[in-house]
């Protein structure tokens, strides 16, 4: 096919834009790097301070308390296995990375979701951006992330946030807009202000859905750990990545299994939190 239109220089534009950002917003990026790095390192140091068996018992008790005996038992055996295989340190690093990414996802995602649920205009802009964030291959924004945040754990966290935040936002919007119209009408009829309606009615009723979104965000953040390790993020992902590059099938399986254990524990615990909120007669 003959080229009747010269190729659009999108690649060039993006390069220019990233260069412009790197030079002009260096201070901001440095600030973000420092903050994220200290959060992750703080978490790793904090977790590392606790002896592994205490940590295992604590998490087992939490899992038992929030969900049930079975999950508690699984947590006990699973974490013991991870410790036994010698992946305790990397597991803590992965946990710190995931929790940081999810924490930021919640911090940014829920207010964004609330805003979008109230203003159709905002929703019209946010939703396509979310589609973009989720479908653009994660490797693609790893490249600029290195420019902005160097290599290490920070670009990993940033990439995880970009990838993991959309479900929190989406399900916050959904949860709020799912509140039945007649209930909204009733709160209006009794003279609620917008914030009263939001805090007393919409958010509590949307909570199970929002929790499902957070659960999804955690799972997505976990799925990013291997990719994040490619820009130098430490943790189980790095072990998997190393095993892949060195074709060590057994080691790769061990590290992968450890990720699965963490994933299941986090998934079941957060799901149970969502369900507990449902008790007491919520929809």
């Amino acid at each position: 096919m003959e080229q009747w239109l010269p190729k659009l220089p999108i690649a060039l534009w993006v390069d220019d834009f990233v260069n412009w950002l790197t030079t002009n917003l260096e201070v901001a990026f440095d600030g973000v790097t420092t903050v994220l790095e200290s959060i992750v390192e703080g978490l790793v140091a904090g977790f590392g301070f606790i002896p592994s068996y205490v940590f295992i018992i604590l998490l087992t008790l939490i899992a038992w308390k929030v969900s049930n005996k079975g999950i508690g038992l699984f947590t006990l055996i699973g974490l013991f296995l991870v410790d036994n295989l010698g992946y305790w340190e990397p597991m803590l690093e992965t946990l710190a990375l995931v929790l940081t990414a999810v924490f930021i996802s919640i911090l940014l995602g829920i207010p964004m979701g609330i805003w979008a649920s109230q203003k159709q205009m905002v929703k019209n802009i946010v939703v396509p951006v979310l589609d973009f964030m989720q479908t653009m291959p994660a490797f693609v924004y790893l490249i600029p992330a290195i420019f902005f945040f160097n290599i290490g754990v920070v670009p990993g966290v940033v990439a995880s946030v970009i990838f993991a935040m959309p479900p929190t936002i989406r399900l916050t919007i959904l949860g709020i807009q799912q509140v039945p119209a007649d209930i909204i009408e009733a709160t209006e009829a009794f003279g609620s202000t917008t914030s009263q309606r939001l805090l007393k009615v919409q958010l509590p009723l949307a909570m199970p859905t929002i929790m499902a979104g957070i659960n999804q965000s955690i799972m997505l953040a976990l799925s990013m750990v291997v990719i994040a390790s490619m820009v130098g993020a430490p943790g189980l992902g790095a072990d998997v990545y190393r095993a892949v590059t060195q074709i060590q099938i057994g080691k790769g399986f061990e590290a992968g299994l450890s990720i699965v254990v963490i994933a299941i524990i986090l998934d079941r615990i957060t799901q149970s939190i969502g369900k507990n909120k449902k008790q007491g007669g919520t929809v």
Partner: protein
Amino acid sequence: MTSNPIKIKVQNVTKVFGKSKKAIQLLNEGETKNAILKKTGATVGVSKASFEVEAGEIFVIMGLSGSGKSTLVRMINRLIDPTIGEVLIDGEDIVKMNKEQLREVRRKKISMVFQKFALLPHRTILENVEYGLEVQGIQKETRSQQAMNALKLVGLEGYEHQYPKQLSGGMQQRVGLARALANDSDILLMDEAFSALDPLIRKDMQDELLDLQSTMKKTIVFITHDLDEALRIGDRIALMKDGVIVQIGTPEEILMNPSNDYVERFVEDVDLSKVLTAGHVMKRAETVSIEKGPRVALQIMKDLGISSIYVVDKKKTLLGAITASEANQAIESRQGLTDIIKEEVTTVSPETLLTDLFEKVSTATIPVAVVDETNKLKGILVRGAVIGALAGNNQDINQIHTAQSEAAAGQSAKEVKITWNNGSRNSQ
């Protein structure tokens, strides 16, 4: 009719969903709802509705689904903004109010009860009832107290810590009612409030509402698609069709004088026995004073061609009845009326619905007496007239004013409202 102040005044209110300008223009040219929908794609929800509701009145807006009744009631507290028109609450036009003022009106003056209850599932019953007070920023103790009082009124004491899901439909709607009452606002909007309940519970709730209303004297706008419900609880009824109010009147007016074919078709299946009362069908009672002798009594009976007569004192207080044969015996044995009077006679009050007096009328040997609360004789129930009234024969239905003045009784507040345009009386 105008004894009470006007609480709600709806003036020329129109709601158009969609392109309103063109639709309103067409509406003013007299186009129908369907024609406007075809031409502009806009739906006329309510068209030029005007009515007034007095303080303390139960005003029922009735119509089938799609008639615009729910839209109309939502314009009274502006859950739906009218396209044009005025809605005056205590003389203030809420259509012109800003958000702040509107919120104040909703908090203090108007409460609402919803068809599907619209309770907050994550809050206890007490917290639900408190909601309206909570948004006003009222102290925890005060609002709990007020909410508990409201729960007591609807008979839900002891359920305050349950959640809505744990209650039956009827109880949930009581919570809805309590929530509306807790605010102590003058106006209650009830949007098909009892329509989601099964028939028996619905009837209970209607009775309870009437009961509460007799002490609280709220101004109630009640939406329903059920004519029986409208007739039961409404002081006045507005009948809607295709967004237009086709007739406003008391239940009797609407039943006996339908303003057009639509209303007539609507009301033709109504069970008149649940609308008409003893007062409507009673005939003038022929009486004899207790001081008179049996001869006089017998003479009166002979003149009128009747076989029994009621005996009263000077103040028309019912004392009893005598029959012609008893009068005859008294004359022969030289007894007075006091000796032969039969004191056990069947009586009903003028407010008794026909449906409740069939048995008495059918088993009584002499016409049943209609007496007021001071036992003054106001009329009698003749079987033929009762059946005639049920058949819709207007001649058998009294113009209450006339009946009362003839019976020389005082007028109670409720009866003042009832006026009949048609109903010349038969002489007995």
